[in-house]
């Protein structure tokens, strides 16, 4: 199913009022950063304990 114009408008409206630039992409970058950080800490944890 292709997204309708109404669905895309509603989706884009979420990020429209963000004080951050390119919030529609930045939220994914932030998630990836925290995910990689958590994985790295998990690797460190395995080697430490």
């Amino acid at each position: 199913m292709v997204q309708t114009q109404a669905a895309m408008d509603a989706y884009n409206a979420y990020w429209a009022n963000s004080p951050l630039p390119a919030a529609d992409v930045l939220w994914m970058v932030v998630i990836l950063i925290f995910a990689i950080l958590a994985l790295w800490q998990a690797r460190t944890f395995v080697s430490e304990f």
Partner: protein
Amino acid sequence: MDLQSLKRKEHQKRVKKGFMWALFCAVLWGLWYLPGTAVWVLNPFDQMYSEVAASSGDGVALVIVAVLITALNAATVILALGVWTGVLGKFGEMKRTAKEFHPCSKWFFLASIFGGPMAILGSFIAMGFVGGAFAAVAALMYPVVGAILASKWYGEKVTKRAFIGIIVIILGGITIFGGGVLSEIGSGNVLWVGYLGGLMAATGWGIEGAIAGKGLDIAEPDVGLTLRFIGEGLIWWIIAIPMLAIAGFPMIKYAILAFEPLTLMVLIFAGITFGFCYVSWYKSFPLIGVGRGQGIGNLYGLFAVIFIFLFFGDVPSWTILVGGALCLIGSTVMFSEDTGEMESLRGD
């Protein structure tokens, strides 16, 4: 350095790591609200909601769409945890744990029943029949249930200081969502099933934590959590979705339609945040105890508000700022506890 100091240093390091994992849980849980909110307006869920609401009403439509989103979320969480387990090189351990059903994996499958259909579905029922703020407050109560159960069942020690910290964080959470709860309850015509949903959420996650704490005595958290989500995935995809489809709801049709690039991408990010937050939650339990792990994990309410402000631009009201301050005080009370108090997490 003598043996005693070495032991103390090692213990302090474990406690520090335990709080770190509980904080990771809170941050990632807060981040989950971004894809978890945005996915609702995307198709096919938007269209599914309209179709079900037209025949069964808004409350039922919300729960039915929530079941499909939760089932798809569980599937993407399993994928994310597959990556996590793979990177940590624990597939062999997972096979071993899964085979040992009686001593090990039964706890995680039991945890999946309480955490999945009971807590998550309860939370969605509360959201659908009362409101989002009430569902959030109800869920915040789970560390009290978890701490009491872990204490009664296997004698986990919850110090007075830790308990005060948990209560202050809960009060902070109630202040964050309190205004919304009053207006939701004040609007009248709230069905009792909505309150039952809230109770299901608080007790479900509390019981899950206590059960997981028991299972984690003999299993790895990374592996245990992956098995728990495989259990939840089976419950949704083998039992719940087919049963709802038989009852006449268009589950299969919309599950297939969910294979759309943007919807899938948002679901995958929901899976990464939810899966990694949950595994961090489980990792904190053996290190600082179920009560503390769940208490710090409750800071998700504060992080959700911060991320929603940063990415959605929703400016928080003063009650949210007061609640946030209470959350910070509660967590400081717990962080600053003398680690010697946690030398033994059990009452021996």
